[in-house]
């Protein structure tokens, strides 16, 4: 009897976990995909990276759901997975699928220089920009997520923003600051 009750409770717990994860996936996946896409520039690659990151999130859901910002974890995993990825197009089989290759510069309304500058940033600076500016996290939360001091976050952001600002047409800043 006791075993039966334990089994029922366990099944309910699993169902609850799945429901939670499904809600998380539904509410965060599009934003995460677009952030990863801005960082890697290749639509197919971004899809793969995000799928992999969410799969890992589900595998470790009990740990991930307890995090302060689970979607930040997903984005970081996706971007870290990008390293050594053999899906970089230069290594792919040439099968004439160039028409389907969609690079983000073609779809965005901003200068490709800015996105190129974003991708050239050192990994830590890019992480800070992603968390602070794209995921809109504050300095303290970003510091906790990355395991570094708030001052270090600010320093990385300052350096990264200086590089990114140089890639933005000057008139853009003037319009903003008016």
């Amino acid at each position, binding site marked *: 009897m006791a075993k039966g009750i334990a089994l029922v409770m366990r099944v309910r717990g699993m169902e609850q976990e799945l429901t939670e994860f499904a809600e998380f996936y539904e509410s965060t996946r599009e934003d995460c995909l677009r952030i990863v896409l801005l960082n890697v520039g290749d639509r197919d690659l971004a899809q793969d990276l*995000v799928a992999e990151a*969410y799969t890992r999130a589900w595998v470790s859901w009990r740990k991930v759901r307890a995090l302060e910002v689970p979607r930040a974890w997903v984005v970081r995993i996706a971007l870290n997975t990008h390293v050594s990825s053999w899906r970089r197009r230069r290594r792919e089989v040439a*099968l004439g699928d160039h028409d389907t290759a969609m690079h983000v510069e073609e*779809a965005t309304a901003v200068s490709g220089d800015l996105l190129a500058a974003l991708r050239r940033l050192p990994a830590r600076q890019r992480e800070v920009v992603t968390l602070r500016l794209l995921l809109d996290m504050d300095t303290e939360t970003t510091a906790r997520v990355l395991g570094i001091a708030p001052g270090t976050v600010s320093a990385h952001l300052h350096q990264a923003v200086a590089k990114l600002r140089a890639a933005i047409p000057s008139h853009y800043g003037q319009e903003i600051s008016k």
Partner: protein
Amino acid sequence: MNDSDTVDIVRDCLTTAKDSLAGVHVNTPLDTIVRNGRARRRRHRLTGLTGAIAVTAGIALAVSALALSGHPASQSGHSASHPLIARLAAWTVAKQANGDITITIRELSDPSRLQSTLRGDGVPATVSPSTQFDPSCQPYPMTQALFTSIYHAQKGVGSGNTVLVIHPSALPNGAGIQIGASLDGRAGDQALRQVAGNQTVHQLVHQVAALAGNSVLRVGLVYASQQCTGS
């Protein structure tokens, strides 16, 4: 303009870029994520058994290696019409009398051993488990015609397993083969459909997906080198 203004400008530009991607949507269904995650959890739980399986596979390979190296007890079983076969739990490599190599794949595990086996059969090869790939390898320029002259995929007779046939004689000088698995079926499916025909591709994708989560076999060509393909 102070630092805060600059941050605001960059934030605004990046947000604009992100918002302009509103037409881009995730194409992986929740079911696929959950299914792959569960398969991965099961594999983690079975990690303890992997060692024992590896030992068994190693013994099987050793037996095959003895046969291939001309062990008297097995030499009589070989003839021009009977392929030389190396067997492992996850895959089987057979060298046919005409020089073709057939790889029957149940799961793309133990890639380093598959790589060694192929190299042992005289095929310059690099095999990677998934997204990890040897950075020393450089892609070899390739047309679709060249690709299809080297590779074709089929369904194993009776077994339902994926069979990849390689024609080493069609390899250009200086080229080697590349085998790996993609994270999901989409890209591999599209790529293989173009070279192998819809029916074969669907079988291939299905069989690999059934045994190794949703991963799909990916093949290509690289420049042969000692570091990348062993020769």
